[in-house]
């Protein structure tokens, strides 16, 4: 395996912001409810995750207490901030010390500029569920403009941010975007998917990573259809729940056919495709055969 396939992700943010909860939900099949049992992370917790077969994500979950934080920026700075591909910085929207939060963010950016200037930066405004519905957007805009300002100074002008919460689908959306930014041969998947869509005459096809059910890519259906814009995340969370419940039968999910027009099936050892057809009178055998044939293009 070439070193190119190892990606180092830093997960930072102040204590209690919800970093370990995110990691546990996305990568360790925790339910949102289970995360209450997580304790504080001591120093840095490393986890190595295989993603799409040949990609390894090294997730560095950095404990956020001030003692550790100080350490990261002084003694350990070259160790922590070297060869970073992605920085994911988590902000607690309920935090009382916003100024201090941003200060830590800028300190991290400063180190990154020095040690790995090509890193991609993502910020997550977490625990959005604690903010009233009508205030969420406004709060997000204000916070983002502040962070954008701060990051531009340190040479990272295109900052990407997401409002997230562990209690809805927003977490999947954010992580899908983050992880997708690391996949090198995205265009191949995209074009293969388009071909498959033509062959099947499908309404929509979505490709999911198998272990995490994060969206890898989708055939874009902007044909005037009014589909739920949050459907990807919803499918992720529905399918993940189903995956978990199938574990109770000591097995794992293989295929699902719903009303003869939604097909969910494995496409490769690490991908799952979600196909929605226009009609429901296509013979099932034929659709399944087509999926089988498509498998070789997604290895």
């Amino acid at each position, binding site marked *: 395996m070439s070193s190119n396939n190892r990606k180092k992700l830093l997960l930072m943010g102040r204590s209690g912001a919800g970093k370990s909860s995110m990691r546990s939900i996305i990568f360790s099949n925790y339910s949102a409810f289970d995360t209450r049992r997580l304790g504080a992370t001591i120093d840095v917790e490393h986890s190595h995750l295989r993603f799409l077969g040949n990609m390894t994500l090294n997730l560095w979950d950095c404990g956020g207490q001030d003692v550790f934080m100080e350490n990261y920026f002084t003694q350990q700075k070259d160790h922590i901030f070297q060869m970073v591909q992605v920085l994911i910085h988590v902000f607690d929207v309920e935090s009382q010390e916003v100024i201090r939060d941003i200060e830590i963010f800028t300190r991290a950016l400063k180190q990154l500029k020095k040690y790995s200037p090509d890193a991609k930066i993502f910020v997550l405004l977490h625990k959005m569920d604690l903010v009233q519905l009508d205030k969420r957007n406004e709060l997000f805009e204000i916070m983002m403009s502040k962070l954008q300002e701060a990051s531009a100074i340190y040479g990272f002008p295109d900052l990407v941010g997401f409002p997230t919460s562990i209690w809805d689908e927003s977490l999947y959306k954010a992580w899908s975007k983050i992880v997708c930014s690391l996949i090198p041969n995205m265009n191949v998947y995209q074009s293969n998917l388009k071909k498959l869509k033509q062959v099947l005459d499908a309404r929509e096809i979505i490709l999911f990573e198998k272990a995490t059910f994060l969206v890898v890519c989708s055939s874009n259906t902007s044909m005037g259809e009014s589909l739920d814009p949050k459907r990807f995340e919803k499918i992720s969370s529905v399918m993940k729940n189903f995956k978990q*419940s199938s574990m109770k039968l000591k097995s794992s999910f293989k295929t699902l056919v719903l009303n003869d027009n939604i097909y969910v099936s494995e496409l490769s050892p690490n991908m799952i495709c979600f196909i929605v057809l226009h009609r429901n009178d296509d013979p099932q055998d034929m659709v399944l055969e087509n999926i089988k044939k498509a498998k070789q293009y997604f290895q």
Partner: protein
Amino acid sequence: MDGLDSKATILLMGLRRGGKSSICKVVFHNMQPLDTFYLESTTNPTSEHFSTLIDLGVMELPGQLNYFEPSYESENLFKSVGALVYVIDSQDEYLSALTNLAMIIEYAYKVNPRINFEVLIHKVDSLSEDFKLDTQRDIMQRTGDELLDLGLEGVQVSFYLTSIFDHSIYEAFSRIVQKLVPELPFLENMLDNLVQHSKIEKCFLFDINSKIYVATDSSPVDIQTYEVCAEFVDVTIDLQDLYKNNEEREMKSVSTLVNGVVIYLRQMIRGLALVALIRPTDSSTATVDYDTSIESCLTVMDYNIDIFKKGLENVWKHAKVLPEENERSVQQDQFQTAF
């Protein structure tokens, strides 16, 4: 059983802060268990109506009132209900609740001896496994003693350990509702027939909205199987909603797992869905003709379930017009020969 009213009614009682409204919201309104923290205290008797296989009324009484004041027409109330569900908070001191329960049972039994008495030992999610059983034994013992003192040793009281954070509350309600379905033996018989002829391991007849099962075949219920089937109903509904066409169709979904288990869902009448767990291959023969056996099994399933559905429709059509026992058993016989 249903007295003057045509629908079966469940009466939900208990001391204040026992969790009665939360139970109602979680089971019948799909509220998230955590959101129930913010429920206000109930001040008036509330009654709601759900139409599943049977018409079900759920009446909730506020805990802090005394029902033996003459202003409440408690006599009429108890006459009209089929089941009395008493909720005990297991995390709290429960002695006063037990005294209250005994008083209620004494009164209700006098008015209507046909009431099913059900006791939910509630909020057990934070108790350890040992402590759960200890609590249950203690409560059963004390209730028995209290009833003995009142000279009511013949009264049947059922106990359930429940929590809204797992499926135990649905399981308990399923059993309670099932006691109110007079047609239950026929349904079970039909399901047993279906199971025998289709390689089904276990099947449930679910109410789609509440995930309560109104009937299952006679093999023992394993809570995990129930959970998987209930969650499959959710998966099916959620995915269907995302890509809904304008046309309303009967829901049908089939999922295969890696170890060959098939979960099968078909929509039936009256907001019900049949969910079945199928193991098409024995572990001994699971080799070459693996795929074909699933397919043939599904074909047989489809055929049998069509017949089952017709049977269900027939039973219900006639149950509405002529609710006599013999009429329904005739239908049942016809159905059996159809297999």
